[in-house]
């Protein structure tokens, strides 16, 4: 018999089937847990999608604003693909995949105006809050992108401002009860194209054989706030339309997991 895992996965897919028995548009079980690093971080969360596990933490620091934006704080998103989480991740400086993922998660939050940057000002032109969102996969069983975005939002929702001492101009890291100014909840879904089929929530094996993928961040009322295409194969306009529709349809599954966070 011809042993061809790539062809096998593609073959299954063309029949609308998957290795783990899921439907093409079916997510694995999603859970969100808050406060996993509550002693250290201002906000933290753990997201599990099947065996995939990602943790995210929020740290705040007070700093000078960008000269062209004196009345805005900002976010800094950093994803590290720890070699702890997968034999495919290597030690060393951030890989292009890690940087790419950081930027996509950043964009989803920044461009959706999920966080009101104007409400992150301590003293106009002098001091603003810098919100660091650090994201780490603990186990990569595929679809780290969706898990990372969801973990980032969950950690932001969990976060509270630390105390700022106006006299010394230092953050004391004592926690207040004041939540961050979250105004919207962007949700990211990554849709893969394998052959002429589209599928959600890929496993690592499916990611290997994918022709292309499109990550779509969505908001309420069928709005899209960020996109990023990956992979070598092109997509047609019809395919993009179908992917966006599918993303919007899947939004609630991830959003519910976020709302049911414990």
């Amino acid at each position: 018999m011809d042993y061809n895992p790539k062809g096998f996965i593609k073959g299954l897919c063309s029949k609308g089937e998957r290795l783990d028995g899921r439907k093409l548009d079916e997510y694995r079980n999603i859970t969100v847990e808050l406060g996993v690093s509550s002693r250290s971080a201002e906000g933290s969360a753990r997201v599990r999608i099947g065996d995939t596990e990602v943790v995210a933490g929020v740290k705040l620091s007070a700093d000078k604003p960008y000269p062209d934006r004196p009345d805005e704080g900002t976010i800094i998103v950093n994803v590290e693909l720890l070699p702890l989480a997968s034999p495919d991740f290597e030690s060393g400086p951030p890989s292009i995949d890690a940087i790419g993922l950081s930027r996509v998660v950043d964009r989803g939050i920044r461009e959706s105006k999920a966080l009101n940057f104007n409400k992150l000002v301590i003293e106009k032109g002098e001091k603003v809050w810098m919100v660091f969102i650090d994201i780490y996969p603990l186990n990569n069983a595929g679809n780290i992108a969706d898990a990372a975005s969801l973990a980032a939002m969950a950690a932001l929702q969990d976060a509270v401002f630390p105390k700022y001492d106006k006299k010394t101009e230092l953050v004391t890291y004592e926690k207040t009860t004041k939540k961050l100014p979250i105004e919207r909840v962007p949700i990211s879904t990554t849709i893969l194209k394998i052959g002429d089929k589209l599928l959600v929530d890929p496993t690592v094996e499916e990611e290997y054989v994918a022709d292309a993928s499109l990550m779509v961040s969505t908001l309420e009322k069928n709005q899209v706030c960020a996109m990023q295409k990956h992979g070598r194969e092109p997509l047609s306009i019809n395919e993009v339309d179908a992917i966006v529709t599918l993303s919007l349809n899947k939004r609630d599954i991830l959003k519910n997991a976020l709302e049911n966070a414990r």
Partner: protein
Amino acid sequence: MTYTKRNDGRRFDELRPMEAKVGVIKRADGSAMFKIGSTIAYASVYGPRALHPTFMRNPEHGLLRCNYNMMAFSGSGDRVRPGPSRRSKEISQVTKNALEPVLDLTNYPNMVVDIFVELLQTDAGTRCAGICAAAMALADAGFSMKDMVSAVSVGLVGDKVVVDLDKEEEDYEDGSVDIPVAMTHRHKKITLLQLDGIIPEKQLQEALKKAEEACESIHKVQRKAMLEGYKHGL
């Protein structure tokens, strides 16, 4: 001057509550989580696998490589800058030294065994928690080990010998001494020993005695977690 009561109400020789679990990272060859108080360490093991860069290969035995890292949000003060620091490199090195004596790597010429330790949350004792997790992860990966390794930090807070210092005790205003110790279970050999501060000989002897007893308790937790992990077979 005198330290009369621990801030969390523990006895001076009492460890913080512990939790341990193996097999927490499915993609790894072996993995474990070890939690002591608020300090949470994850460890995963990969290998034996091909060693790169190749000039590091040794035809006589495999190489053990350790990497200790604190997640950026895991510190109690400012964000920890990602990437290796002098501190994390030193801890990686002493972690490797703490674990190497219980392994026999002569069966893996030219190969490497990688251990990655990540701290999710910290409240002192991170290198010891990392070593406890890493030792369990090695066992979980199925390496034949000569012995199990457990680690704890003991020391002096004010004038008292204490076991398992937390951050507040490490930062005690009248001074503290921190002595991280790793010990093998059956042979009672010390594989990690560091000391920070000024301590009289007598109290150092007492502290090491306490470390041995504490490692015994930690070993029980590790052993239980490992048995638990294989309760339903592989």
